[in-house]
């Protein structure tokens, strides 16, 4: 980057918020996806929304690629600046601007941390349900840009179900407003809908309006133990068929159970072939009734044992085991590839059979856990990216996983995004026309192609 341009950025955000040393720039070359790092030319950290808009304009005026980054927890390479250019950090824009208890909405800057936001909302007696695994560090801007999910997706939906409005900068740094503080709003094109899952390719978020809901009054958690994966999968389908929508309905396979037990000593049954971790919530009377029904369904479909949490402590234990799943698996081998191909929930049994076949075919260790209730499993491949021969098998296995998921009427990504990791598969799921339509849209809104170029739809 030439000196004059660097000085222009310094004038906008302050010298201390422009990073140009190699060490600083390299630390923004990666995210949580297992991909090659690419070092940006410059990193800037605006401290005001106004400065953010000016940075966008300066990038566009100079045709500089611009990759917006929150906390860089992306699992699909969406925050890797694959064309170089400027990485723009949002983590200094971390103010909760408003929490409106009467009208059940909140307005936040894009760099607000998800868990901090959820805690602040909870302190006001309200509830923001989306709880992606990275919520302790992820930003609200990133959650919207990726349409992040989480454990509560089945009943409460995902980030998109809570986005009431997004104000964003176009490439000229002008503010585009979309959505409203009201439940109903049909004013203009649904541009905030377009921003959700856009992965920074169509606009740069200035502020976000989010829906809040009242928290459930009661919850009941239980763990059902199965000696057969199929029985567990059929139980998932049967619970949904009985018109019960648990807040959370999570699955763990035998490999994951054993690994978690080795790591966390949570008292899990290591001989079990599958576990379902189930939580129903809502009004106390409804919770009691649904918990009984769920227990009966589990028994009927062959659960060997059902453990219902008697108090908050036992409930916490159930979820600790689930929360430990990724940590435990990650310790087994140097590289952890966390996939999120998703299928219609009735197809979970077929997906599980296919995953077992793929693990065998490519001689790989795959632990599977995840959000069985919404069809979003996380087959987790445990490998070592330094082993080239094995890594090739991993890549082939991933191809197969996507083929199977699409064959079952599913999707490439439930909640991790497309980024650069999955963009080559996009056409398989959609169509050539879909890609071209998306590219024309992008070209019209971003003629110089500065906004996170190469992501989702390639170029």
């Amino acid at each position, binding site marked *: 980057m030439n000196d004059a341009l660097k000085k222009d950025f310094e004038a906008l955000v302050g010298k201390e918020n422009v*990073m140009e*040393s*190699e*060490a*600083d720039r*390299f*630390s*923004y*070359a*990666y*995210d*949580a*996806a297992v991909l090659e*790092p690419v*070092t940006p030319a410059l990193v800037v*950290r605006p401290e005001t929304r106004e400065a953010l808009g000016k940075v966008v304009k300066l990038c566009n005026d100079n045709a500089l690629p611009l990759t917006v980054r929150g*906390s*860089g*927890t992306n699992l699909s390479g969406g925050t890797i600046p694959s064309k170089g250019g400027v990485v723009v*950090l949002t*983590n*200094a824009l971390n103010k909760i601007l408003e929490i409106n208890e009467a009208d059940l909405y909140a307005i936040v800057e894009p760099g607000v941390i998800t*868990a901090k936001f959820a805690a602040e909302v909870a302190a006001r007696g309200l509830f923001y349900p989306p709880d992606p695994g*990275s919520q*302790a*560090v992820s930003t609200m801007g990133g959650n919207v840009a990726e349409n992040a999910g989480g454990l509560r997706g089945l009943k409460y939906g995902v980030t998109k179900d809570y986005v009431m409005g997004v104000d964003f900068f176009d490439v000229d740094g002008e503010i585009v407003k979309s959505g409203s503080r009201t439940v109903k709003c049909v004013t203009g094109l649904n541009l905030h809908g377009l921003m959700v899952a856009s992965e920074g390719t169509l606009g740069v978020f200035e502020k976000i309006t989010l829906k809040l809901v009242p928290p459930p009054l009661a919850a009941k958690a239980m763990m059902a133990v199965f000696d057969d994966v199929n029985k567990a999968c059929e139980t998932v389908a049967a619970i949904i068929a009985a018109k019960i929508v648990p807040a959370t309905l999570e699955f763990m396979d035998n490999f994951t159970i054993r690994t978690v037990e080795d790591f966390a000593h949570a008292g899990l049954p290591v001989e079990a072939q599958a576990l379902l971790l189930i939580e129903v919530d809502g009004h106390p009377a409804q919770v009691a009734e649904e918990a009984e029904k769920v227990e009966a369904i589990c028994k009927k479909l062959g659960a060997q044992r059902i453990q219902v949490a008697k108090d908050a402590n036992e409930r916490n234990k159930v979820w600790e085991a689930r929360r430990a799943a*990724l*940590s435990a698996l*990650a*310790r087994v081998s*140097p*590289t*952890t590839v966390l996939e999120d191909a998703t299928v219609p929930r009735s197809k979970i049994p077929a997906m599980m059979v296919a995953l077992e076949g793929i693990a065998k075919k490519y001689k790989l260790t795959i632990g599977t856990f995840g959000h069985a209730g919404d069809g979003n499993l996380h087959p987790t491949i445990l490998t*070592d*990216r*330094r082993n080239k021969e094995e890594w090739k098998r991993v890549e082939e296995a991933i191809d197969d996983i996507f083929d199977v998921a699409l064959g079952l009427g599913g999707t490439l990504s439930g909640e991790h995004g497309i980024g650069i990791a999955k963009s080559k598969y996009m056409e398989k799921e959609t169509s050539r026309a879909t890609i071209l339509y998306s590219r024309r849209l992008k070209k019209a809104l971003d003629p110089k192609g500065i906004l996170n170029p190469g992501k989702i739809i390639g170029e």
Partner: protein
Amino acid sequence: MSDMRELLKLLGELDDQLVSCMRCGMCQAVCPIYGQTGREADVARGKIALLEGLAHEMVKDPEGVQDKVTRCLLCGSCAANCPSGVKALDIFLKARTILTGYMGLPTVKKLIFRGMLTRPGLFNNLLSFASKFQGLFTTPVNDIIGSSCSKFLEPVLGERHLMLLAKTPLHKDVPSMNTQAGKSGLKVAFFPGCMADKIFPRVGHAVLKVLKHHGVGVFLPEGQACCGIPALSSGDKDSYLKLVRANLAVFKNGQYDALVTPCATCTSTIKKIWPMMAEGMSPAEREAINALAAKTMDVNAFVVDKLGLTPPAPAQGATQVTVHDPCHLKKSLGVSAQPRAVVAMNPKYVVKEMAGCDACCGCGGSFTLTHADMSARIGQQKRDNIKSSGAQVVATGCPACMMQISDMLSRNGDRIAVKHPMELYAESL
């Protein structure tokens, strides 16, 4: 060593540890430095990526990487919260020795570590000399804390409020001891550590009083050296190894059930870092290190776990004491209940928790000198939490934390005493 290839080879040996970082970024939630700056190179994930980048020649600037790697309190919050169990502290200490080996040690540090610290006799004499004259350059500012400030030393020390060298260090009052186990049937080796010897001898005396009261025999050999962590965290492995060897030599002559220290950092250094950083030691030395490490305990943990003390109910109108958890006690060793129990052993005191009791105080050893502004910003948060707790006393099991907290409270003009839990218990005996 100034050969790039040698640097790459040594960094390559860290590869197995580096590769276990899955770049999830969860360390951002707990890193005190990242909390201040929001910069990726300040958090463990960034530092690990930089070391990996350097090892694989994607980053060409070892000096830039070293600069980032030293922006770290070595508090271990990242390692304690890492989902994939990356041993970040081990990595950073090893990386510091490798990078310092390549870049060389700055002259001032060379003078301090090689010329002074590794010669315990000379070190003691120099500081004893200094303690006689320090009053000429400093003015007392806070009688509750016992701090002073110095116009004369401001260019070096900034606006710091200092805890001065004690008039009489512990080793002058108690040069050595070797008493037999009494009614407890237990005997300990006592390692006061530099700060409890030279700045807070009152802590050392309190420990001896408590041990005597409970009939615990004490082996306190002469010629103890620094535990080595200041040298190691600056990457000076030679000095570090000398210090470890000096201590092994004086402690090998005693018979004892445990080695106790009143310093969280010394405890975790002896217990965790000595066995980890034993490359270059002979098999016999390694064996001695492992045996000593296995016996090493925080003194609060010894008193509570080995003597089986249970606190009485607090007296009416007991003074409120808030407890700061040193990183090297809670995060490194999992010791947090015991210091609270030790405070409560004195019925005149009752524990009153503060928000963020286990957040780092910002000291980080020489970090507080090399990165004074950041250290003070992190320290200010700790001070605010202490102040908001409403307690009149703050207790912590680490003299380095005591010094940092004294500085921060004194700068704010707070009249809150800073004590070691053992001091508070000893008052009742």
